[in-house]
């Protein structure tokens, strides 16, 4: 089983070939966005972090900025800095693989927005021409797939998530790496995942991460319902977080869980991993892309429309009405599982086919719609206060 991708100097294989334009602090999103808009082949990743935050968050944000730069879909990086932010732009530049070209422009040094955009556009054009290359065949060991469910309804747990879980098992068996997560959406199902951990230490770590997340929720002294499950989940028939979690975890398939990753951390060997991460799309997708995912499987019931600027996001739904109503955003329909006319295994095979096709260059619906080509629907997860 192979796909065709862009072989990088560090040995990784991209399924897309972008110059990532990444601000080191939210204050220069404007400049980063204007630069990327001017140059074909650029993809902006915008966010609202990088300054006036405590050191654990700053460390996490730095890890993610570096991780995004190192993602195989990124051929080269243009960092856009303000100059006075807490994040050290040079450090981010130096921590990205030495085998990847990284340019840096700084607004306070260059004399403002206009001159920074002009300089940035020049740098970006040079980088785009540097990374031009053809696709070559690569095996599945070169593929990391992120898995997410969003805007779930009762069909998610009985169709889209089990079918995706079947595809995840096939990916892992083929030597690929798969990252799932959404720690909040494990509450009530953590015992099942812990039993699938490769050893006791991994299982214990997973339970600890769930307890920490639940602790942060309880510290507010309120019922989390309305936040999780969301009002949309509740309208779709999901009553409690436990019910949502039990339906959500099946998207991670049945293979042993090899490790628990910090938010944005990259796995070091193939297999199935759990990333400590929130359920919200903007932050979750960033985490798995920073962790090296070149492609994302995203299941939905009610219909989540967004993609991600650096990676193709494949939308899978088991709700036929959603597939028909939101066809602009849906890639794979697995509603036949509910009708009883297709097996979970067969639907999983169709998802795997879609991965190979999209990894080899065929655009997903989010890319066709340009959702999110502007890079504005993304953020980096932080757990502490903005100060």
């Amino acid at each position, binding site marked *: 089983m192979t796909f065709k991708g862009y072989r990088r100097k560090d040995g990784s294989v991209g399924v897309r070939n972008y110059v990532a334009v990444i601000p080191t602090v939210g204050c220069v999103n404007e400049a980063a966005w204007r630069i990327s808009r001017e140059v074909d082949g650029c993809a902006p990743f915008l966010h609202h972090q990088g300054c006036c935050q405590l050191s654990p968050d700053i460390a996490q944000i730095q890890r993610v900025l570096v991780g995004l730069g190192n993602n195989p879909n990124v051929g080269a990086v243009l960092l856009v800095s303000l100059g006075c932010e807490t994040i050290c732009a040079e450090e981010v530049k130096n921590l990205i693989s030495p085998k990847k070209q990284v340019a840096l422009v700084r607004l306070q040094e260059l004399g403002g927005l206009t001159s920074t955009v002009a300089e940035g556009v020049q740098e970006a054009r040079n980088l785009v021409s540097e990374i031009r290359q053809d696709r070559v065949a690569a095996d599945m060991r070169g593929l990391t797939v992120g898995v997410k469910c969003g805007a779930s309804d009762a069909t998610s747990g009985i169709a889209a998530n089990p079918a995706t879980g079947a595809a995840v098992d096939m990916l892992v068996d083929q030597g690929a790496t798969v990252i799932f997560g959404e720690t909040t959406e494990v509450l009530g199902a953590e015992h099942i995942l812990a039993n699938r951990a490769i050893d006791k230490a991994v299982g214990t770590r997973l339970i600890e991460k769930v307890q920490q997340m639940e602790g942060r929720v309880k510290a507010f002294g309120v*019922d989390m319902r309305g936040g999780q499950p969301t009002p949309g989940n509740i309208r779709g028939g999901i*009553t409690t977080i436990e019910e949502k979690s039990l339906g959500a975890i099946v998207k991670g398939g049945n293979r042993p869980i090899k490790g628990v990753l910090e938010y944005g951390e990259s796995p070091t060997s193939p297999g199935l991993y759990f990333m400590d991460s929130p359920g919200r799309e903007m932050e979750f997708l960033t985490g798995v892309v920073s962790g090296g995912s070149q492609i994302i499987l995203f299941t939905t019931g009610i219909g989540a429309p967004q993609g991600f600027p650096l990676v193709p996001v494949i939308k899978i739904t088991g709700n036929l009405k959603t597939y028909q109503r939101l066809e602009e955003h849906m890639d794979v329909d697995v509603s036949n599982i509910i009708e009883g006319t297709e097996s979970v295994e067969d639907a999983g095979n169709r998802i795997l086919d879609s991965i190979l096709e999209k990894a080899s260059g065929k655009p997903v619906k989010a890319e066709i719609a340009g959702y999110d080509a502007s890079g504005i629907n993304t953020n980096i997860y932080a757990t502490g206060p903005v100060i």
Partner: protein
Amino acid sequence: MHRKALVIHKRDNVAVAVSAIHAGETVIVEREKGEEVVLKDDIAFGHKFALVDLEPGETVVKYGEIIGQASKKIRRGEHVHVHNMESRRGRGDWEKP
């Protein structure tokens, strides 16, 4: 025949409607064996109804696992949702200050 409701696991005490069902309708669900349930409420697509009577505090089971508890008395065939069941997790409102 088009199926109207699913029991996901044999230990479950709720079923999931896979098409809209009206109050008064009788549906057949497959648990240990086929059984008839008379619906007491309208059930929307994706929503749950009880297969047994439940007292407040009794656990609601779906996917063969506990998904919460009854917050009111629930009778067989009734809609089971936020009006009569609740979560046991993430309950900051249950914590003593």
